[in-house]
């Protein structure tokens, strides 16, 4: 899964990243959007408010705040809908408690965070990538989660579809991180034919209600999910629960449940982890980047090659779980690794962890609300 197959027939439009995300969500079968407007993510919500009432069963609701938005989409997800919300830094902070709840009850949903400068209200209309570690560790407690990123408008559409597929497949909240540059850049994109897309939906129980165990161990470690109102009367709780969904504090039951929730992501690591390699095969200097910075880096790598420097680029499409094998391979080959990002080093921290002294990891950070230009990256490569 997680790939968009060859397009048979396509429609080309000129759109910005936020609109592409909304389009991707609709293609993926999103039928519930609850949100609260916040710059620079608002266009996603605006497109959804326009489009969802026109679809067969689409529901759009503007809630009173981000906490409520997240609560509403979890409720809708439990009732069997593919649901999504979109926000930006401060709103994402508010959502954290409910992201933890969604992890615990294993509710499939997609949260889009169009990152802006921070902390606090920060730089509302300027790009930043400061929410990377918050996306992974923002909520309390130990949990696994999937975090994706997009660097082009086309990718915004595709990654949204993939985000929904992963959410449904692994019964987990998926966070899509986009930065303001990608979200507001207008580009020509092609909208794939819906028939060409692989759209996944959650597994529903096939056993009679009296046999159904809502959180039972399954081969994929992902239990089937019965929508509320379908005849399977289940209890959903944010408390640690046994396989029937009822609160428990028995160490053996708690241990089993927690381990399974980690395992369902861990064992499909190869499926979830997505990277783009560009000229990495013979690279002596590698750039590891994501989001709009990856596009600057792409150009910088081309320029470096023209000047005879064997540079390569690793674009991270999945940020968490972290792309350890891909990065490790580069660490073993390269003279140094450069990690440019619009924060003080949130992914370079992961790269350094993987590197663990093998080679040199250099960082290039900007936190002034400005994009990182190709020439800056080129200077750092040379």
């Amino acid at each position, binding site marked *: 899964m997680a790939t968009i197959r060859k397009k048979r*027939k*396509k*429609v080309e*439009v000129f*759109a910005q990243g936020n*609109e*592409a995300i909304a*389009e991707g969500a609709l293609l993926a079968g999103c039928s*519930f959007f609850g949100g609260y*407007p*916040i*710059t620079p993510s608002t*266009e996603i919500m*605006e*497109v959804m408010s*326009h*489009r969802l*009432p026109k*679809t067969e069963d689409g*529901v759009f*609701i503007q*809630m*009173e705040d981000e*906490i*409520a*938005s*997240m*609560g*509403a*989409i*979890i*409720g*809708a997800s*439990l*009732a*069997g*809908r593919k*649901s999504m919300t979109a926000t930006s830094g401060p709103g994402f902070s508010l959502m954290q408690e*409910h992201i933890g709840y969604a992890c615990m009850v294993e509710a499939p949903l997609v949260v889009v965070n169009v990152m802006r400068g921070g902390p606090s*209200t920060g730089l*509302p*209309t300027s790009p930043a990538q400061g929410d990377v570690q918050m996306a992974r560790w923002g909520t309390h407690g130990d949990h696994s989660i999937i975090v994706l990123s997009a660097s082009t408008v086309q990718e915004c559409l595709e990654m949204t579809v993939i985000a929904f597929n992963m959410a449904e497949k692994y019964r987990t909240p998926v966070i899509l991180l986009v930065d303001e540059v990608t979200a507001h850049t207008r580009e020509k994109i092609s*909208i794939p*034919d*819906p*028939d060409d897309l692989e759209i996944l939906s959650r597994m529903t129980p096939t056993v009679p209600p009296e046999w159904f165990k809502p959180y039972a161990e399954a081969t994929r470690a992902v239990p089937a999910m019965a*929508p*509320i*109102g379908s*005849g399977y*009367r*289940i*209890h*959903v*709780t*944010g*408390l640690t629960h046994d396989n*029937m969904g*009822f*609160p428990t504090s028995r160490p053996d039951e708690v241990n089993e449940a927690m381990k399974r929730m980690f395992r369902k992501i861990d064992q499909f690591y190869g499926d979830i982890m997505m990277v783009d390699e560009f000229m990495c095969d013979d690279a002596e200097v590698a750039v590891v980047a994501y989001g709009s910075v990856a596009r600057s880096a792409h150009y910088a790598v081309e320029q470096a090659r023209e000047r005879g420097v064997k540079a390569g680029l690793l674009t991270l499409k999945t940020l968490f779980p972290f792309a350890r094998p891909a990065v490790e391979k580069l660490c073993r080959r390269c003279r140094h690794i450069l990690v440019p990002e619009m924060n003080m080093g949130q992914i370079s921290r992961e790269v350094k962890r993987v590197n663990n002294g093998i080679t040199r990891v250099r960082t290039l950070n900007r936190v002034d609300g400005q994009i990182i230009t190709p020439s800056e990256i080129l200077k750092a490569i040379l």
Partner: protein
Amino acid sequence: MAEVTQLIHDYLRHNKKFPHVFCPGCGHGIVLGSLIRSVHALQLPKDDVVIVAGIGCSGRMAVYVDFNTVHTTHGRALTFATGIKMANPKLKVICVMGDGDALSIGGNHLIHAARRNVGVTALILNNYIYGMTGGQCSPATPFGDTSMTTPHGSLEQPFDTVDLVTAAGANYVARGTSFHANMLDTLIKDAIMHPGFSVVEALSPCPTQYGRKNKFKGAVSMYEWLKKNTVKVENRKEGDTRIPIGVFRDVDQPGLEDRYAALKAQIAKKDLPAPKEAPVPAGECAPLEVPVEKAETKEQA
């Protein structure tokens, strides 16, 4: 008696480990009984009923009853309920909250659910105190009463739930007590059958955390207090300081889910045939519609 036993068998979960968490004398069990009797009297199928509960003693109610039940985060039960109701309007969504849940952390959600008039029934169990956390004051604790966090007496005026949700626009607003169980049955029954947002506040004594600190001799004296200090709203005379109980507001405006369905029908009628300005790809995918152009610099949201 036999009928009561039968109801217990029908509506409580057999595979759940009992006993429940409620203390002796707690009013919550009576409210739970009322809720079950109301659902039973209305002959609602169990699969169509969703109990969404917040956190605390009242939140535990969701564990015991054999409906679709969701035990949510503190104060946010109404947001989940809104999502569930909008996702599947056929369901009867009942939201069980405590006074801390509904009025403090969830105060914003409560007034907005009322304003939105979403078809959810909110059952607010008001025991004047945070029970499960150990007896701290809540936004419903009466002025001057003592609690773990107001040892010298509360300096703040409590919310009047009825006034609050009436002002915010709920369709049906009522107040009952654990002492007046039969009346509570009727109120909950009416609330469930009402379109739009309905609220039933149930005054429910907490002898362990509230009564003990406020010089009530025991659970019985708290129920006697309820009997003495409440008056039916229709019998209330000018200058009566007792707490009015009964139905305060009863209108039948359509709920949000009905208005949304009407809007969708209207759009569907207007939208046929499909818009012609852009090519329509195969399948259901309509061309991307670009919303109103944004100015370059935007006010910070």
